[in-house]
């Protein structure tokens, strides 16, 4: 099996659901990647970026503030408080998403290092799209 199911939900609805090749999460004890057939794991998530490599090879980035992830062999479930996906058809849409994401992260974290880290990641993600 080379893909796993991934679901991300927030109190405002579901923001991602589908088969993915891999995903990277901002765990409380450091960033970690998850591949299909990963052992069961429950982890606290901190403010940061979830990077998802979709079945077609494209990478999606989603900025989150805090939450939980439960990984098991074939399914990964993420519940987060707030999330902003870095997507957009046009450059202005993208710019708006980035701005929202930065606001979210500033509200959620008080570590300058974490904020800078997320901002850098978001901008790289945005650049690779255009």
């Amino acid at each position: 099996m080379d893909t796993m199911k991934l679901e991300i939900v927030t109190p405002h609805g579901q923001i991602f659901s589908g088969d993915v090749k891999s995903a990277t999460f901002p765990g409380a004890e450091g960033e970690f990647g998850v591949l299909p057939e990963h052992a069961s794991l429950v982890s606290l998530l901190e403010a940061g970026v979830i990077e998802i490599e979709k079945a077609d090879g494209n990478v999606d980035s989603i900025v989150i503030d805090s939450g939980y992830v439960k990984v098991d062999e074939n399914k990964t479930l993420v519940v987060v408080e707030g999330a902003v996906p870095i997507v957009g058809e046009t450059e202005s849409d993208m710019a708006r998403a980035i701005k929202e994401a930065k606001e979210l992260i500033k509200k959620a974290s008080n570590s300058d290092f974490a904020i800078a880290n997320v901002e850098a990641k978001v901008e790289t993600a945005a650049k690779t799209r255009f």
Partner: protein
Amino acid sequence: MANLKEIKLQINSVKGTQKTTRAMKLVSQAKLKRAEELAKRSRIYAQKLDELVSEIAYEINTSKVGGAESRFVQADLPVRTVDMIVITADKGLCGGFNITTLKTTLRMLKEYKEKRVAVRLRIVGRKAIDFLKYNGIEMTDEIIGLSASPDYKQAAEFIDQSLMDFAGGKTDRVILIYNGFKNMLTQEQRVLQLMPVDISTVEPRELKSTIEYEPEEQEELLNTLLRKYAEYSMYYGLLDSLAAEHSARMQAMDNATNNASERVNELTVAYNKARQESITTELIEIISGVEALK
């Protein structure tokens, strides 16, 4: 003639009532839209949180891995005291909405009494409080106003009390009862077991690995997750209940408005009949008077 006047008065009073019921229907319709939207957005989150927590609880129960010492996930806890949280509306005039929940509550109270289990009632909503007070049933806690305007913080405070008592061993089970929104026409009675986490909903499956926790103080992680779960379940219950209340009221008021129209029609017929009758009587009187003079 007195009869005519009486009927006229009655028609006016029914029309007045109809105005009220129609207005109430419109108000509920508007409020329902908002409440439904709010409930709909939170539904997925509540469901997934439920799934997440019950799966963890299932895995802990099946393989007895870390966290099994937590009271929150012990499925086979002996039950001596039950905390029952009941949500009803603050206002009536919404058909059987409140009564259904109260009937379920009474039924469960009876069942627990037969099993010699003590029950603590924690009530949200004026209707249930009034009902239970009238029937002389004791309540541990009551709150008014929360079901009309659900607020996460208040809901969390309310449920935290239950969680603390549960964690401290004062209670052995926490149950949430309310009437939920199914669609515009029907409400659904929901009875949820919040604590210990209900694992009967999880599909049994083979576990290949035990769970790892990160950060490793799993107790803390589990406790915050479980608290979040209970708080959100409570909050979602309130939202769901509010949407259901408005849909029930809308329907009840729609029926009332229709009944009022019917009643007005009946009364108008009666009024016309009475008027015709009085005219006929008058005519007969005049004619027979004229006849007598001949």
